[in-house]
Structure formats: structure tokens, C-alpha cells
């Protein structure tokens, strides 16, 4: 009977062998993956015992931590209320969102670049502190944008982004509906904070979504700027003309494409690119897309940043899409920003910013610098060229045409005018099947020396870009210029 006992002994040893191999796998190999897993909420409690560094906007602390009396935990404060809830986010047990998450390793002091300092702190017995993160946001522009969009959005939904065209610095990033970070990070009543978070999380209007960076909309007529850019880059001038009838028969059949204003764009004659942009002519721009072809259109869209990725904002940004058109109908629709074209407000601000900056798109960024606890600079962002989207001559011609949008006799975006300052803009009203239209406005000002480029979308506004979105853009631009 000893042979089967020996085998049984070996088998039970093998069982332990399997367990030993498996725990080795989990704790030695898989450990890092497990620690970084998105479901992993461990360490959450520990995070509240770290004196987290503040976040600055224009040298004001808009988020800071203070020790709770009689406890080892810290309470995060957001003195500006809901103003910065997008894009800064909130630091709470569900994980920090926005800048709070993206810059977490600096804010909680765990970043390698703080290692030496932390080590010295340990030696001297002083408390380890997180770093300070300074943002590029302009408080006046952010405030003006939030107020204006709240007043102008009938649906209560929408977003706006403002950039400094010459650097790519994000000056304002507004998204509504938003929320009060204090209500979801109150350590004195965590149950209520959790309940509030849960109700926000399940709210059908998605108040936790930063629409400025992470929601995709059909850009509608604002995309005509990209179509016009493609034409100019392919040998046309702003005065080149193309057929601009009242309605355009689709190449592969189906419902004809009409103009929004219900007539031909140039009295039935071929229309110039400049005039087509001014009036926002659908048929001529669809014809341009058909003439240029899918490849030229795709290349131009990608040159502005579509489908190209935007790391280091540092908040995650959804990729905008210009998928290669599947057929001519799709190509025609893509020329006016419909079909399968989708863009974030940030992407359309980059389009405006690229034209404002002589054709050079700057890489958008929101963190200007990171300061150590002793105010020494640890990291800073210097402006980087993202792409040369168009030549400077193309940019100049497009600027002239976009000025007509706000100032021309037939301009569709006169709501974006600022007294005494030339504004270049483009309206957009994107059709959405089964819902109200999205209303867009992209612009930059002053046209001869741009300081700010803006994109505004009013989600399901049901009006026009000129009436709903342009005033928001105007408010933001004024706030930046009148500083």
C-alpha cells in the first residue's frame, strides 16, 4: 500500500506547489497591475492623510487641503464653488477626476521628482507635503464663460473652451451641467457625499462629464473652416468659386442637401469660398468636399488634430474623429461637418487657434508649472507646436473670410461682434437625428493680433450658432482681451 501513499503524498505536494506558484504570480508579478487596477480603491483612506498640495489659478488657491481638527485626515476645499468643477475635478473617495486625478502624483507628493525632497523631509522630521499645481486658466474668462453659457443654453447643457492661440494655454474650459465639488468631498458627512456623488453619477444629464474635453458632437458648419482650409491648401484661393445651388442632389441618391436659409447661396451663380463661409452655404462646401476627395479632407482634418491624440493636457481628452468617408454621400456631408464627423469643443478651439496663429496649431495645455512645497519649480510646460495645419497665407485668407462672418452684410455670426475689436468667427448648427440641433460658434480675436481662440457648443440648443453660442464666445473673448 506504500506506493499509492507515496503518490498521494506527491500529489498533495503538487497541490501546494500550485498554490505557491500562484501566490508568487499574484504577489510578485501581478502585484503592480493589481495595485494600478481601476477597480482598486485601496489606499483611498490613506490618501486623506496626505497634506495634498493646492491648485492655483492666477495665484489664487482654488483647491487646498486643511487638517481636520482632532483627526489625522485632511479636508479638501474648493473656494470657487462650481466654477472649476470641470476641468479641475474633485478629490474624493471615488478617485480624483480632472486635474486632481491627472496631476495626482504631484499633488500627493508621490512623484519621483519629489523623491529627494521627501527624503530630506523624512531626515529633518518635517512633514511630507504635496506639490502645488498652477493652471493656465484665466479666472475672468472662466467666470464669464460659465455665466454666459448658463444664460444661453435652453437645455442647460453645453461647453466652451478658450485657448491662447500663440501658446496653446487653455484659458477657459466650461461645461454644464456641473456640480459643486464641496458637496461630494465633505469629510464630515461622508454618507451624504457618497449619496450626492451617486445621484450625480446616475443623473441622465451627466453632470460629471466634462463636455469641453470628453464629449463628441457633430461640428456642423464650423467644420466648413476645415473644408475651406483643405481647398486653399490644394491650390484654390478664397475667391475660387464652385456651384452653390439651393439644394444639392446627393451623388448616390437619397434626400437632397439643402441650404439652411432655403435659397441658392449666390443667387444661383457659383459662389466664392469667402462668401460661402460668410453665409454658411451648405451646397458649395459639400461640393468642395466632393471635389477635393476623401484623402485631402482626411489629411486636413488630421493636420488640425482629428484622430491624432492629445496627451499631456494633462487631463484625458477624447479623440475627435474624421473617419475616411465611406462613399460620396458621406464625403459631401462631411464637408459641412455632418455625417460621421465628430469633434470635441477643445478640438474646434484648436481649429480656430491654428488659423489665428498663422496656421500653426499649438499643443493645448492646462498646467503651467508645478511648484515644490518650498515654492521651487519642479516642472513647467513650455509652449509646443502641435502641427502646421495650414500655410500662413491660407490662414490669412481664412481669417479675412471669418471676419465677414461677424461683420459682413450677410454674416451668420454677428452675435459674436465686440465693439471696437475685429472678431473672426464661424457659426455652426449641427443636425442631430431625433433631437434639437447643437449650436456652435468658433472664433478668435482681435483678428489682427489674436489673444484668444474660442469654441462654444450649446448642446441641443435648437437655435442657431449665431444667436445662442456666439454671445458666449463673445463674453469669453471680452474677458480675456479686457484684462
Amino acid at each position: 500500500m506504500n506506493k499509492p501513499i507515496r503518490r498521494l503524498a506527491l500529489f498533495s505536494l503538487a497541490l501546494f506547489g500550485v498554490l505557491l506558484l500562484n501566490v508568487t504570480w499574484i504577489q510578485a508579478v501581478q502585484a503592480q497591475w493589481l495595485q494600478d487596477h481601476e477597480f482598486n480603491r485601496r489606499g483611498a483612506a490613506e490618501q486623506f492623510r496626505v497634506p495634498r498640495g493646492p491648485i492655483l489659478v492666477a495665484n489664487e488657491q482654488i483647491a487646498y487641503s486643511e487638517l481636520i481638527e482632532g483627526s489625522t485626515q485632511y479636508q479638501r476645499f474648493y473656494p470657487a464653488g462650481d466654477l472649476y468643477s470641470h476641468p479641475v475635478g474633485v478629490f474624493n473617495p471615488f478617485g480624483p477626476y480632472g486635474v486632481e486625478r491627472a496631476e495626482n502624483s504631484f499633488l500627493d507628493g508621490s512623484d519621483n521628482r519629489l523623491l529627494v525632497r521627501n527624503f530630506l523631509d523624512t531626515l529633518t522630521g518635517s512633514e511630507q507635503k504635496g506639490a502645488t499645481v498652477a493652471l493656465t486658466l484665466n479666472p475672468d474668462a472662466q467666470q464669464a464663460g460659465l455665466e454666459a453659457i448658463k444664460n444661453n443654453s435652453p437645455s442647460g447643457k453645453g461647453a466652451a473652451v478658450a485657448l491662447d492661440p500663440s501658446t496653446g494655454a487653455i484659458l477657459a474650459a466650461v461645461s454644464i451641467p456641473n456640480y459643486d465639488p464641496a458637496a461630494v468631498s465633505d469629510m464630515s458627512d461622508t454618507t451624504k457625499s457618497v449619496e450626492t456623488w451617486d445621484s450625480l453619477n446616475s443623473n441622465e444629464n451627466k453632470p460629471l462629464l466634462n463636455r469641453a474635453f470628453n464629449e463628441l458632437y457633430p461640428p456642423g458648419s464650423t467644420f466648413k473652416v476645415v473644408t475651406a482650409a483643405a481647398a486653399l491648401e490644394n491650390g484654390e484661393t478664397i475667391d475660387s468659386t464652385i456651384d452653390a445651388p439651393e439644394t444639392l442632389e446627393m451623388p448616390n441618391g437619397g434626400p437632397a442637401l439643402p441650404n439652411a436659409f432655403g435659397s441658392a447661396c449666390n443667387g444661383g451663380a457659383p459662389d466664392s469660398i469667402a462668401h460661402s463661409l460668410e453665409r454658411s452655404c451648405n451646397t458649395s462646401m459639400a461640393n468642395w468636399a466632393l471635389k477635393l476627395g476623401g484623402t485631402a479632407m482626411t489629411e486636413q482634418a488630421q493636420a488640425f488634430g482629428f484622430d491624432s491624440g492629445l496627451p499631456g493636457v494633462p487631463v484625458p481628452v477624447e479623440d475627435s474623429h474624421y473617419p475616411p468617408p465611406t462613399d460620396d454621400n458621406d464625403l459631401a456631408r462631411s464637408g459641412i461637418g455632418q455625417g460621421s464627423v465628430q469633434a470635441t469643443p477643445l478640438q474646434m478651439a484648436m481649429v480656430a487657434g491654428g488659423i489665428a496663429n498663422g496656421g500653426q496649431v499649438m499643443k493645448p495645455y492646462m498646467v503651467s508649472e508645478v511648484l515644490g512645497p518650498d515654492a521651487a519649480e519642479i516642472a513647467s510646460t513650455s509652449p509646443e507646436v502641435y502641427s502646421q495645419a495650414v500655410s500662413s497665407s491660407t490662414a490669412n485668407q481664412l481669417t479675412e473670410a471669418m471676419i465677414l462672418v461677424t461683420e459682413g452684410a450677410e454674416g451668420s455670426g454677428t452675435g459674436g461682434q465686440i465693439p471696437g475689436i475685429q472678431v473672426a468667427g464661424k457659426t455652426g448648427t449641427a443636425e442631430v437625428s431625433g433631437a434639437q440641433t447643437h449650436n456652435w460658434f468658433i472664433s478668435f480675436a482681435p483678428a489682427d493680433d489674436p489673444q484668444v481662440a474660442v469654441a462654444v457648443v450649446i448642446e441641443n440648443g435648437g437655435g442657431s450658432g449665431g444667436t445662442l453660442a456666439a454671445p458666449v464666445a463673445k463674453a469669453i473673448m471680452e474677458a480675456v482681451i479686457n484684462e
Partner: protein
Amino acid sequence: MSEGLTTALPPVKRRNAELVMLLLAIGITMFAMISAGLAYTGELPPSLFMYAVPFAGMALLAHVFIRFFAPYADPLLLPLATLLNGLGIAMLWRILDAPQLVPEFASEGATESSMTQLMLTAGSMVVFAGIVFFLKEPRTLQRYPYLIGLAAVVLLLLPLLPGLGFSVNGARQWINLGFTSLQPSEFAKIALVIFLAGYMVTKRDVLALVSKPIKIGPIKVLELPRMRDMAPMAAMWGFCIIVLVILMNDLGTSLLLFGTFLAMIYVATQRSSWIILGLTAFFGACALLYPFVPHFRVRMITWLDAFNPDVYCSDAVMASADEAFCKVSGTSQQLVGGLFAMGEGGILGAGLGGGEVRGIIEVQNDFIFTAFGEELGLTGVMVMLMALALLAQRGMRIALASRELFVKMFASGISFLIAFQTFVVIGGVTRVIPMTGATIPFVAKGGSALLSSWIMLALLVRMSNNARKPAPVAIQDEGATQVISR
């Protein structure tokens, strides 16, 4: 049994070696408590002596007892059991008692204390001593195999009685005795091993030799037992599947009992056809039952697909209104939470008291292993696994060294039970196999589990003593009378 001679152990006592290792085991336990106390309050635990003195005293008493009543017992058994039991108490103290010392972590109305576990250990050790003392010859148990088999069945069925039995976490394996509650399956498994050992010793020739070859053409593929010899296998299978899985939802006990049964029939007959037959029947039944036993299906899905957001219930799934798997059936949060704890521990661990083990669901029971993983790290759980492996291997060695068939069967059955039970629990929480719910021998909280562990240890101690003690020497002065060993 000519081969028995070659496997016999030398008749040495090794009691001093046992004492040294026992002191080491007690020392490790005390250091564990001190380390946890220091991590929480920065000072020695105020109740250290309340634990150290009784625990060390009990273990040393058990040692002295063995010195007198089982002097030839294997010297590793008691220290290994003491180490595992002590680490269990230290971890429970760290989970249940240490946080109460710090106002910030204290939870109001917390009544559970590891002191209960210490007292249960004391009680278990008394039973341990009683068995070692009274059961001078384990082979006497061979006399009543059917009675003991009946007892095993009754114990297993007790939780099904209305009014007496109740369910914990879905599995109906508890009975309420008014003053305390018991998990009779913990004792039934030992009774079952006794029954199987006795039964198979008498029936092994029939089970081993009579066979019906299955041929494909002229080639013999498999030798199957005759139909009527399959009755015990069929009964065991039916019991494990119908009663334990379907009626009681007790997957862990079912797997444990059937595995032990297969191991013992293999030891008795040395025929692999029994194992093939048994595994086919068991897994076949599992596959058939899969669509009909929801509890079983949940365990399978949470095992295979643990990191799927729909199974785990991620924030996004929780926020959405759809009928995700986890909202309807059950989540893998417990399993994944345990893995996160182990991942956090890494190789060296966070140190006792340094982790967040109180967040693990069921941390005092099945998932105590993941708490060790987090706080003692890979190093610590390897030590624990080696201690358990060593315990099972020493048991197997006793089976090899024993001279009687019944004792060989009995010792190997008990040893395999220890090994397989460890595999089922720890394999379950570390995602080697589906989670079934069972307890790590000696470590996990609970009186029934602890008591049954110490009963198994008592049996091994007694059997090892008898296997090693020197054969009686004839006293030549008294003429031809031979002394018979009792």
C-alpha cells in the same frame, strides 16, 4: 507488508527538538501581536500577557502531555499546529482588537474579540489531549465502520432539519444548539475518513482486483470495476451532488469529501480507473447542474470573469440602469478585493497592522489568507503554505511508517484531507479554482473548524507515536510468554 520494514521510522523520541520548535512557534506568535500593537498604538499591546501567558502555557502543557503519553510522536506536528493557530490568533487580534485601541479606528458595539479564538483553542487542546490519552490504539475505530459512516451522514444532514439548521452566506451548513452554533460537516469529514478506512480495508481486494476490461478492438483501454462494486462510489457521488450541492449549497464540503473519497479509494486499490470514473462522474454532474444551480453558476462566472466590469460592478456599471450580472446574481468584489490586498502586500508585505485588511469582505474567515498576503507579503504566505504542506507530508510519512492497513488508510486520509482542504480554500481565494467556502486548518476563525483541526492533529500524533515506538521486546526471564503490544 514486507515493504513496511523499509519505511519504518527510527524509535527516537525527539521531544526536546519539539520543545525548541514549539518555543519558536510561540515566539513568532507573540512577535506578531507585538508588531501589530506597535503599528497601531506605538506601544506594546496592553492585553499581550492576557494572550501570551495562556497561549504559551497551553502549548507547553500540550507538549508536556505528549512527552508523557505519546513520547514517540512526530516532533513537528505540535509546533506546526501551534504556529498556524498562533498566527491565526495574532491576525484576528490585529483585525478585531487592535483597532479598538485607537479611537479613530474603533467601531462602536464591536463585540468580537480574538479572545474567543484563544478560548476555543484551549478547548480544542483539551479535546486533543483527551483523544491522545484515550485512543491508545486507533485501530479500535476499525470495529464500527458502518456506525461511524452513519454518524457522518447524520452529521452532514443535520443542517437540513428545519428549526435546527441555518444558512450562512448561502450555504446551509450550520446548526443552532441554542448556546452555540456548530458546523457539523467539519466533524463529518473526519468520521467519513474513519468509515472509508475501515470499509476499504475489508473490501479492498474486491475493489482492487475484480474488473471488467473495456476494449476497443483488441486493445484494452480501461479496466472498469464491476457494476455492483460501484455501489459505494455511486452512493458517495449521489450524496455529494444531490445533498451537498443541490440541497445545501455547500460546494466546498462536497468537493472536499469527494476528493478525499477518491484519494482513499486510490490508496486502497491502486487503481487509476476509480479516479477516472470518479472525476468523470463528478465533473459530468457539475456540467449538467451548471444551468440549474444558480449558486454554482455565480461561483463559476465570478471565478472565470472576475475582472469584467459587469461581474465586478464597477462604478460605471453601478451608475447605469442595466441588468448587469452583478446586480442580478452576485459580484466578484470579494474575490477581487482579496487579490487587491495580496497585490498591495507584494513580496515583503505591509507589516502586521500596516495594511487595510479590514476592508476585505469575510476577512476573519475564508479570506484571512489574503490578509496574511497583504501584511506578511509573499514571504509570509509562503511560510504559511509550507507549514501546512509540511503538516500534510508528516502525516503521509506516518501512513508510510505504520504497520497496519487501517492506520495507513486512516493517516493518509487525514493528511490528504488537510492538504486538500487547504487547496480548496486558498485556491478559492487566490483564483486557482472557483471559490467554494471552507476554512484553512488551524488558522481561520471558528470553533468547529478549530476543534476538527485539533482532532485531526490528535489522531496523527497518536498514530505517529504508535508507528515509531519500539517494538516490544520479549522479557526473556519470564520464559516463553510474549508481550503483546497494546
